[in-house]
């Protein structure tokens, strides 16, 4: 039994984390922007980041399935349950949130061309009735994901600063490939 994450798992974790926080910030700002070329550009990058997150998450699920993460450090049962539940929720949302955004974009008549280079298939057809519903789902999902990321950060800091255990440190330790 190892007490470390693999380098791949660590790299995936921090890359996805940085991308998700960026995408959430863009999503928060862009909907209120006045129509401009910059707004379209921000929307495009938001979508491309989302597609990147989805792709990395699929890799991450496969990696995690074949490379079990280290067991949780000793902690009260309620914290253990909360940690497992929050991690499961984060994994689910990091897969579903890009998908709802992708579907919303398609329903609103915007196919996604990844980085302006790779045309992606439409998940749904252009649909004026479905678009507002998917928008609602994507916005609510974004809010829930932001809350979950916030709790995840707070919990990591709590383990590091208050419990002074290895929880955060072992996600930073760059060894054992």
């Amino acid at each position, binding site marked *: 039994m190892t007490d470390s994450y693999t380098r791949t798992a660590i790299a995936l974790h921090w890359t996805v984390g940085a991308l998700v926080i960026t995408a959430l910030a863009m999503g928060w700002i862009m909907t209120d922007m006045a*129509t*401009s*070329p910059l707004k*379209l*550009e921000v929307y*495009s990058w938001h979508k491309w980041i989302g597609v990147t997150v989805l792709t990395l998450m699929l890799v991450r699920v496969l990696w995690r399935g074949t490379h079990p993460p280290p067991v949780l450090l000793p902690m009260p049962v309620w914290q253990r349950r909360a940690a497992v539940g929050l991690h499961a929720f984060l994994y689910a949302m990091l897969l579903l949130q890009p998908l709802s955004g992708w579907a919303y974009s398609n329903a*609103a*008549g*915007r*196919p*996604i*061309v990844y980085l*302006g*280079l790779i*045309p992606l298939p439409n998940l749904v057809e*252009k649909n*004026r009735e479905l*678009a507002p519903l998917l928008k609602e789902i994507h916005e609510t999902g974004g809010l829930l994901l932001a809350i979950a990321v916030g709790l995840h950060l707070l919990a990591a800091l709590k383990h590091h600063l208050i419990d002074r255990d290895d929880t955060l440190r072992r996600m930073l330790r760059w060894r054992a490939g």
Partner: protein
Amino acid sequence: MASPAICIRARSWIGPALLGLWVAVALAADGAAVNLRQSTLVAVFKQQNAPVEANFKNFSGSIAYDEAKPAATVATLNVDMTSLDVGDDDTNAEVRKAAWFDSAHYPQASFHSSAVKAGAPGHFEVTGTLAIKGHTQNVTVTVSVQPLAGAKAFDGSFTLSRKAFGIGEASWDGVLDDAVQLRFHLVVAGS
């Protein structure tokens, strides 16, 4: 001085007479009217390489086509620019603004054919004047004809430069292609 009763009687045939005259003029134009419900007119613009389709919901026109004499084809199309639907209300409001289609000042776009050349069987090449937003351009389009039950379908597409028609300011060039594809499927009655 005519009595009111006579006035009413006199007016009662003005309507039908005008209708008759209108039908006569329409027939003289010698083209079958475009059936809006069965036809589509789509503009496809590219936003950072992602094709976005915008439908014109309202247009009218006529096509006079004789299979035996395709070169004698005459086609006109008038497009209600306020009927453009990009897919959402915000974008629809945006494209109606002065920098784009300026629909308040230029509510109509039109195409009038000027010359037609016969092509492969079931095809012809039409040249005509396209007028959008006060700008006119000559365009040439290859059109295919498909027989339907009691009707004909005319299909084609061509690419135009939106900037040639003053559509969109230069600041958008980085995110929006100049080339816009127009695709049509026009159904007119007639065997």
